[in-house]
């Protein structure tokens, strides 16, 4: 049986911090950094989904509410946090994940000149990549960010296409 090693989340927080800082050095344009983070997240997501499925043995989603719950449990498994699922759109094709705490931003203060930086933009990428591998296309973006003095961090997830197998 595989032993799951737990690591201190601070190590992860700091590693992610140095990744973002390095990207800011490499690309002077903040928009490019946002884009790179999303792309990296996507590449992580298309691999991470297999780990999630192998570990949880969960089946296919036939409703976006199932998807929301599975994404929530994914956050629990990989980041140790449980975001709340809120703000369902009337059509049931859009919801928000609200983070009270976010391990990625634990020690972070955003300088004024980086006000356009989406610090956690790796997360939307991960979600998009992971869902794409199970034949579901979603769009995902931040609407609120604690780093930008909002009360919570809110990640909006929108269903865009389901590819029937």
């Amino acid at each position: 049986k595989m032993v799951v090693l737990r690591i201190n989340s601070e190590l992860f927080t700091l590693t992610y911090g140095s990744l973002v800082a390095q990207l800011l050095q490499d690309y002077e344009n903040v928009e490019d950094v946002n884009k790179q983070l999303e792309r990296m997240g996507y590449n992580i997501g298309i691999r991470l989904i297999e780990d999630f499925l192998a570990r949880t043995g969960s089946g296919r989603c036939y409703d976006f509410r199932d998807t929301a719950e599975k994404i929530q449990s994914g956050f629990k498994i990989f980041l140790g946090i449980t975001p709340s699922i809120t703000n369902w759109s009337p059509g049931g094709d859009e919801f928000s994940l609200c983070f009270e705490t976010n391990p990625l931003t634990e020690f972070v203060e955003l300088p004024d000149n980086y006000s356009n930086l989406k610090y956690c933009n790796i997360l939307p990428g991960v979600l998009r990549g992971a869902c794409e591998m199970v034949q579901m296309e979603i769009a995902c973006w931040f609407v609120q960010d604690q780093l930008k003095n909002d009360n919570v961090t809110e990640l909006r997830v929108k269903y865009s296409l389901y590819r029937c197998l």
Partner: protein
Amino acid sequence: MVIYGVYIVSKSGGLIFNHDHNVPKIEVEKSFNFPLNIKLNYENKKVVVAFGQKDGIHVGHILTAVNGNAITGRELEDGRDILEMLEQPENFPITLKFSRAKMTTNEKIFLASMFYPLFAIASQLSPEPRCSGIEILEADTFRLYCFQTLTGIKFMIVAEPSQPGMEILLKRVYDLYADYALKNPFYALEMPIRCELFETNLQTLLETVEKSGISNV
């Protein structure tokens, strides 16, 4: 209790991993006098026993060596043709070595991509909607277990029909794939898996299952 092999087929139908686990090797060497009392045929670049099954030499076995010298195709190393040689009485008595045909990598790739449409046809033919496709394919000498993940990768195990717990083993192999192939930053998705850690862990897993059953993994 024997597991014959493990195969992984990618989303697009290519064989990305195969592992021959425990295929018993069958080799028979025997001396013959003129005229040869078994019929040999040359097909698919192999000399195959076509008729005359005896002493552990079965129809379908292939000729691998003559008088201790290995053969390639239908020729000896020195270029002599075997089938012609066996027509001439002066070459006898002669020692021939037969063995069970081994699948080449090409044949495996070929078969894996044949299974892919079979699986698709099975799910289309199903009277019920949302059929999973072939999960077990049974024959008198083996069972093929197939597990397709939600992302479309197929894991297959070929084992003895009496071997229990193969469905669980498939999930364990999926675990190993998620860990040792996908978390390897140098492994490109959809490409053949050449990860040593994956292979050694798989080998250990298969051995444990064969020795002490599925409940211990």
